[in-house]
């Protein structure tokens, strides 16, 4: 005697498989984005003789860690291709859910790029605060801020890509509920970070100005991550 077919359970099994695949891809991409510059910077500084004493060993350690990250990314990227489950899920998914899934995945991927640009923007901001940043350096100081505005607008559903027909499904009441919860988490991080920066700024004003940038990025990242996690949990029915 066979069990009766449950299309909803089958659909959720496909979603779980797809979430596993996306999680592997995200780890692989983050490992690659961190490992590659890590190897170049650490071994580059050793080969150029720029690291001496304890810094030599720190650079070697960072280099080894970066190589491990690259190994992880290579291992995981070998399973990057969509599986037959992914294709079955795509066929069974309504178009608006496919769009929402893509937007949620993008929210996480874009932060790999933003975190990559963050040190550059902070360095440029430091130069500007010191009175040495002009022209291109001043633009660099605000690049990260402009970049982080993109996921925030997507998170708020105000990015302009949602048509009125799509809004009915992509901005329904459950999505609005998880958006509120995600923004609350981001707000808590923002308040804690702003408080810490204010206290720090009482003694080191210049550094405090520069530290506001990572606080903003971190708060936006926490909100985006919470939204993505709640969205995925909802797809599985437990969020």
């Amino acid at each position, binding site marked *: 005697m066979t069990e009766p077919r449950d*299309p*909803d359970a089958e*659909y*959720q099994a496909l979603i779980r498989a797809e979430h596993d695949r996306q999680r592997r891809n995200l780890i692989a991409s983050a490992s690659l984005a961190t490992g590659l510059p890590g190897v170049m910077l650490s071994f580059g500084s050793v080969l150029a003789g720029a690291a001496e004493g304890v810094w030599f060993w720190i650079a070697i350690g960072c280099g080894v860690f970066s190589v491990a990250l690259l190994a992880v990314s290579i291992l995981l990227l070998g399973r990057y291709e969509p599986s037959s489950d992914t294709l079955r899920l795509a066929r*069974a998914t*309504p178009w*608006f*859910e496919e769009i*929402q899934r893509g937007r949620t995945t993008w929210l996480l991927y874009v932060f790999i790029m933003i975190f990559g640009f963050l040190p550059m923007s902070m360095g440029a901001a430091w130069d500007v605060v010191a009175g040495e940043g002009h022209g291109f350096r001043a633009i660099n100081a605000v690049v990260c801020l402009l970049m982080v505005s993109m996921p925030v607008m997507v998170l708020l559903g105000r990015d302009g890509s949602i048509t009125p027909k799509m809004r*009915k*499904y*992509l901005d*329904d*009441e*459950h*999505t609005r*509920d998880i958006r509120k*919860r995600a923004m609350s988490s981001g707000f808590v991080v923002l308040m804690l970070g702003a408080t810490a920066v204010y206290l720090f700024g009482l003694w080191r004003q210049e550094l405090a100005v520069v530290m506001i940038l990572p606080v903003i990025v971190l708060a936006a990242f926490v909100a985006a991550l919470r939204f993505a996690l709640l*969205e995925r949990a*909802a*797809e*599985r*029915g*437990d*969020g």
Partner: protein
Amino acid sequence: MADPRLSSRLKEVRTAAGLTQVELATLAGVSRKTINTVENGVFVPSTILALSLARALGTTVEGLFWLTD
């Protein structure tokens, strides 16, 4: 957000009507995730959504949801 006071028989009524979550979501004009989370008791629907679900399933709100004493 979940509320332990609310009980639901949405899944039973939907299954009895021969509808999948996607089909009910389309009828009620919401996403499948909303149906999924309401059925699993992790999301409390608004009055508007409860009425839309009841209408889509040809029943009343009391036929889908009730308060646990």
